């Protein structure tokens, strides 16, 4: 799939007006703070309605602006589709459309698939358990179109059960409907656990293959998935006024000899591991969906093994549309020596766009 055009309104500092892109590589240059990364954020947001740098969507709004809007034209299987995301801050509202028709999130997110890598983001290894669950969930959603809906259903059921536990503890509700909610939450949790177990299995294997292929020296990393499916006495949950077991407490760890990768590896090594994981996710997507996603590359720094990064990029099928930022004038050779468009960003606007064959 290809992103052909993009428009943004009051999205951070950006003012992108129906910008067209190169089907293969788009190299985005500009001084720091001009909006290079924001352009990648806008593309990621158009695809997922989320940010790739933060879990807080609020940070995408421009100061003192109540809403934001991003739209684009996506080509897939020789068919153009118009996508748009509109969001209002207060009250939080979101309007998603495909070809000007309002669609639910679960349908919307399947229209455009994007993977983003930023060498300054190591949340997958260093962040909270929630960051790693998000890493997992976004990966699963990319290969199983129904997963977003299953996750939404589970979260809704969990919220209801937690509200009930709270009311029971407060003496405001009888406890005899808890059985029904237990059953509903379990039923909703099952596909989440199955999806995560299967995805970790496939991701581990693909990750190991990629690491081996590039003969990277750190090659004993294990992805350990620990579903929180133990049995907790009900009394404890009522006292805690919240559910103490379930997918919301699942743990995904990256370990070497039983120790967290974040404690053992250097910063540069961790960046490489996150990069390999990203390419493993892309590989799983390609196998399952029989299509090429967009790849966003932000913040390439000297700590990365650039030879391996180039090799990884070279191995991507040529139909993969890449967007890369750089504060310097120079990019990776593999991007600069093939056909591409160079977009200069100044003060949130694209001031020049030039094609190189």
């Amino acid at each position, binding site marked *: 799939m290809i992103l052909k055009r993009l428009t943004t309104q009051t999205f951070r500092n950006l003012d992108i007006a129906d910008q067209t892109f190169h089907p293969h590589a788009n190299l985005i240059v500009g001084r720091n703070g001009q909006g290079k990364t924001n352009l990648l954020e806008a593309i990621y947001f158009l695809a997922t309605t989320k940010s790739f740098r933060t879990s807080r969507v609020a940070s995408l709004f421009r100061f003192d602006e109540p809403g934001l809007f991003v739209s684009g034209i996506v080509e897939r299987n020789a068919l153009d589709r118009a996508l748009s995301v509109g969001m209002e801050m207060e009250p939080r509202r979101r309007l998603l459309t495909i070809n000007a028709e309002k669609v639910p999130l679960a349908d919307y997110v399947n229209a455009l698939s994007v993977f983003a890598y930023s060498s300054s983001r190591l949340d997958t290894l260093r962040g909270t358990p929630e960051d790693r669950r998000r890493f997992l969930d976004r990966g699963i959603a990319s290969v199983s179109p129904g997963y977003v809906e299953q996750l939404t*259903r589970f979260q809704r059921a969990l*919220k*209801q059960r937690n509200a009930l536990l709270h*009311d029971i503890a407060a003496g405001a509700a*009888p406890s005899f*409907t808890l*059985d029904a909610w237990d059953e509903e939450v379990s*039923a909703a949790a099952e596909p989440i656990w199955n999806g995560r177990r299967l995805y970790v299995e496939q991701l581990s294997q693909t990750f190991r293959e990629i690491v081996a292929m590039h003969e990277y020296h750190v090659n004993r990393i294990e992805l350990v998935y620990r579903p929180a499916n133990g049995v907790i006495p009900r009394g404890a949950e009522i006292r805690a006024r919240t559910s103490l077991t379930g997918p919301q407490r699942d743990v995904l760890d990256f370990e070497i000899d039983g120790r967290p990768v974040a404690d053992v590896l250097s910063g540069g090594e961790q960046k490489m591991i996150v990069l390999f994981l990203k390419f493993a996710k892309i590989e799983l997507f390609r196998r399952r969906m029989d299509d090429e996603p967009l790849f966003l590359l932000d913040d390439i720094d000297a700590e990365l093994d650039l030879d391996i990064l180039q090799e990884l990029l070279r191995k991507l099928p040529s139909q993969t549309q890449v967007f890369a930022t750089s504060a310097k004038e120079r990019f990776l050779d593999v991007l600069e020596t093939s056909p591409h468009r160079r977009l200069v960003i100044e003060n949130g606007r694209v001031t020049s766009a030039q094609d190189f064959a």
Partner: protein
Amino acid sequence: MTAPPLANLINELTKLPGVGGKSASRLAYHILKRPMIEAEALAQAILDVKTKVFRCSICNNMTDVEPCAICSDPRRDASTICVVEEAFNISTIEQTRDFKGVFHVLLGALSPLKGIGPQDIDVNGLLKRIRDGAIREVIIATNPNVEGEATALYIAQQLRSTGVKTTRLAFGLPVGGDLEYADQVTMSKALEGRREI
């Protein structure tokens, strides 16, 4: 400035679900342009539903006769009860013409987030009907969303001791959906494929 009586009508119309300011004013101007007889018919229809329609004492369906047309129809099989959340769900099931039994309207679904517990929906009325009559099957047709499923599970648990066969509609509908949006074919299949829970 909008004339006060017109502004008043627009204001009343915006209180209706799904009607925003723009459509309210479009409706109000439309009413204003139409002949008096149409306005009177609309006003009378609104007053009539409020004065002549009430809940059936057996099944909670909206009716103007007691008991409702379905409960009093001798051709209907009173030993099969289909349980729905709201009275308007009845028409969704009726349109299939496959269901020959009677209904029970719960008047809602369990939702701790909204403070709706078992005492706020009419499960007791259903249990009473089962104790009083010869009921062979209860088909639970609550919405296929989280609240509807939990309500179905709760009712099934309550019915377990009665020994009555309890079934749940088999939905080809996306989970999280609403009965309201099910078409005739989907509903027919859901009824036909119902499973015991």
